[in-house]
């Protein structure tokens, strides 16, 4: 008798549990009210930031971001459109920043005459920036902010 009522109670509990789960719509900040097994409508694509003005790096080692459109720029074995402006010899005419000297180094730190093959594909590291708002807020603090905090041993 005791055992049977326990089984019934368990069954009722499970049924109620699954019922409440299916009734629930999971709302996540990123994916919206779309059910988990469906794909929601894609948000519209926004244009790139196209100011052509140098942007501050977020940390010293950050590859500088591209402050202009690069739509249709061909970078492959046949040619590199980026280097038409950013190559050492082209910078006088284009007034674009020259690719840094580290891009001329091979793996052993030896300098080559031109951009090293392993640094040839610009967009592996350098990317244009979109005008979209951040979907998730970011509380990244850069190193200069940390250094300038008045603390013992820190920079004043």
């Amino acid at each position: 008798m005791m055992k049977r009522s326990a089984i019934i109670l368990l069954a009722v509990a499970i049924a109620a549990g699954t019922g409440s789960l299916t009734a629930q719509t999971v709302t996540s900040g990123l994916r919206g009210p779309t059910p988990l097994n469906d794909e929601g409508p894609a948000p519209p694509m926004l244009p790139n930031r196209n100011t052509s003005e140098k942007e501050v790096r977020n940390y010293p080692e950050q590859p500088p971001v591209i402050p202009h459109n690069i739509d249709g720029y061909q970078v492959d074995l046949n040619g590199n459109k980026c280097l038409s402006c950013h190559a050492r010899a082209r910078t006088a005419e284009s007034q674009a920043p020259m690719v840094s000297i580290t891009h001329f180094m091979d793996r052993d730190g030896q300098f080559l005459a031109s951009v090293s093959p392993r640094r040839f594909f610009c967009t592996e590291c350098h990317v244009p920036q979109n005008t979209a708002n951040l979907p998730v807020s970011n509380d990244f603090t850069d190193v200069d902010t940390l250094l300038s905090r008045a603390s013992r041993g820190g920079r004043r």
Partner: protein
Amino acid sequence: MTTTADDPNAELNAKRGFIARSWAFLLELWQVLTRPSSVFALGTLVLAGFVAGVIFWGGFNTALEITNTEKFCTGCHEMKDNVYAELKSTIHFSNRSGVRATCPDCHVPHNWTDKIARKMQASKEVWGKIFGTIDTREKFQDHRLELAAHEWARFKANDSLECRNCHSADSMDITKQSPRASVAHQRFLFTKEKTCIDCHKGIAHQLPDMRGVPGWQ
């Protein structure tokens, strides 16, 4: 005027070679053409000549226009699978306003004499088609630099005329351009220091091996 029926040399004529007979025919034709007509009135001849002229000229221009369409150009798989396929992803095929360039807009001069000159030059492409010069993707890639160099040279020689048929420097509003484009156009285009193709290579089709091309690495 003699006819073959009462010509005493008819048998001899038949025995003569093909070239001799053709020559005799041409000679006779010339004699007929250079003598004034004794059968048709001058008005009839003028009218017939006018009508025939209209039909010939109209037909010629229609045929010329048909060869000047994208449908005709992409009728060959060489064009359809290579350059046309590459064009499709560029701004000259699909863009916000829906205005697009077709093959002849860029590759055939628009004024008549230059167009005819280009068409005559293009008869070499028929040779290429017959002998399969670029009938595979690999062969096309091998010839890409040569083909591109021809077009660059043509654009350079006519000051990018086919670009300027649509993109006029006078109508260019540099305040609507990105800062980078506006600076470059003021420095190089407006001063006539460079022409469109000097900077805008590879905007409609993929680039060949650019080693040695000025301005490229």
